[in-house]
């Protein structure tokens, strides 16, 4: 298991985290170590085993379709680093 710098860059892009060259270097090493360690799972034959995605046996949990009052907008926008005219403001998004 060896991760290359390209792969670190790719996963950093997916993660939306800008990495310094130094970070790329040590994350590459550490991820390689960790992924090599988890390779041990391949010792186990898991054919026919159901994946377990939930730690609960609950099912069909619903809420009724009732409208409740929303939060006061001011309270919500106060949390934001940048807002204008009742909107959240972000750098220009090009499609």
């Amino acid at each position, binding site marked *: 298991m060896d991760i290359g710098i390209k792969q670190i860059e790719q996963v950093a892009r997916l993660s939306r985290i800008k990495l310094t060259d130094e970070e790329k270097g040590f994350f590459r090493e550490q991820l390689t170590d960790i992924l090599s360690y988890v390779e041990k799972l391949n010792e186990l034959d898991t054919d026919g085993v159901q994946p377990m995605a939930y730690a609960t046996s609950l*099912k069909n949990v619903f809420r*009724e*379709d009732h409208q409740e009052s*929303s*939060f006061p907008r001011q309270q919500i926008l106060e949390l934001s680093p940048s807002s204008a005219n*009742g*909107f959240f403001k972000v*750098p220009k998004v090009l499609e």
Partner: protein
Amino acid sequence: MKYEVVIGLETHAELDTESKLFCGCSTKFGSEPNTQTCPVCLGLPGVLPVMNKKAFEYSLKAAVALYCEINQFTNFDRKSYYYPDLPKNYQTSQNYFNIGNNGYVDMVVAGKEKRISIHNVHLEEEAGKLIHPESSDANYSLVDFNRAGVPLLEIVTQPDMRSIEEVESYMQTLRNILLYIGVSDCKMQEGSLRFEASISLREQGSAIYGNRVEIKNLNSMKAVSKVLTYEISRQSELLDKGEDVLMETRLWDDVNSSSRRMRSKEESHDYRYFPEPDLVPFWIKQEWIDETMATIPELAVSKRQRFVKEYSLSDYDAGILTDDKLLADYFEECVGLSQDSPKELSNWIINDVLRELKERKLNVQHFVISPKMLTELVKIKPTIGSSIAKEVFVEMINTGKSAHAIVKEKDLVQIDDTSELNEIVIKVIGDNPKAAEDYGQGKKNALAFLIGQTMKITKGKANPKILTELFKQRLSSISQ
């Protein structure tokens, strides 16, 4: 070269619930920005989703109405991508175990039956809305999260459509089904119903699909038709020149009627789907499916066929009546009250009721003339005549009064009495000797003039049929 067009469609329909998918915020359209938000739909730290039961039931209903196989086990997955209108930067959607798979939509295109296969039907959360300021030098965009978290149904077809006509028919039919089962208001102008198309071209007879282009941002059926027309010519030009069609996502620009490149396949998203741990799985027992099945009304396609058979309507008329379930219900309620005149009722509805509804931008359920009132009008029509009946119809809308009341109030009952009419005929001929003479000399429109004069005197109440007969008899006896 002749190419075969291969088209698949993804439809997003906002479900018509009171509250959002995972929180109690309102789903109302058009409110002030960010006034319908809360920690849950804004993805604040620590908050959790809880599934809206109605939204889930509506999705199941749609999947059943589209003849899908229902997955007994269904769950939700997180679909990861960064976009400022997506509060958690993942969308809770379904990927591995959709509510429904392998369904179909039957439709009629140019008189021929065609079946479009549905790949899957799944439930997901809607994103917010980005607003780009008018001025082009503004270096920011604005976000409104009112829409974020509204329940959204996604319906994905197989690439089964072979022409724009088929696509149009599919969109209409699907919209119609969603309206019939009452899960979405399908208001395209409010974005409740949106389409994404994927289109490829291949040589006639080829079994291999060509490179597919996906087009997003289609907010009207017209836009879908336009973009497909545009793409067909763009792609066939490329193929004619021996060039490749690039596998890519394009964005439709409705203002300039053209599509432009958004991203290529290589840059396409890696969505990193995995099961949403904050929602538990859902098990749909057969009884639940059966109960849902029982709530699905007769859909437009079969209703239309039945109307033709049962009420001897033309296929065209039946099509108009069944296009809107409420209108079809209105018609059948009328027929229930007056079994002997389905054809006439249908004419009234198609010509008069629809015209008024359109003018007043009204829904038939909010129309002042109830089925009972309309059938009453049709019943007394023979006693007042067609033209007065039309006037009564308008008066009914304006006053909300019944046909009976209006006829009585205005004394509009038709004069059918031959001797009474004969006296008037004699008088009119006596008052207009020139016209009578003209008629004798073969000028047939003199008759119309005389009838008009009579109608003026009788305020339109004279039975036109009897009147015409009487004039003809009288005038011919004079000229002889």
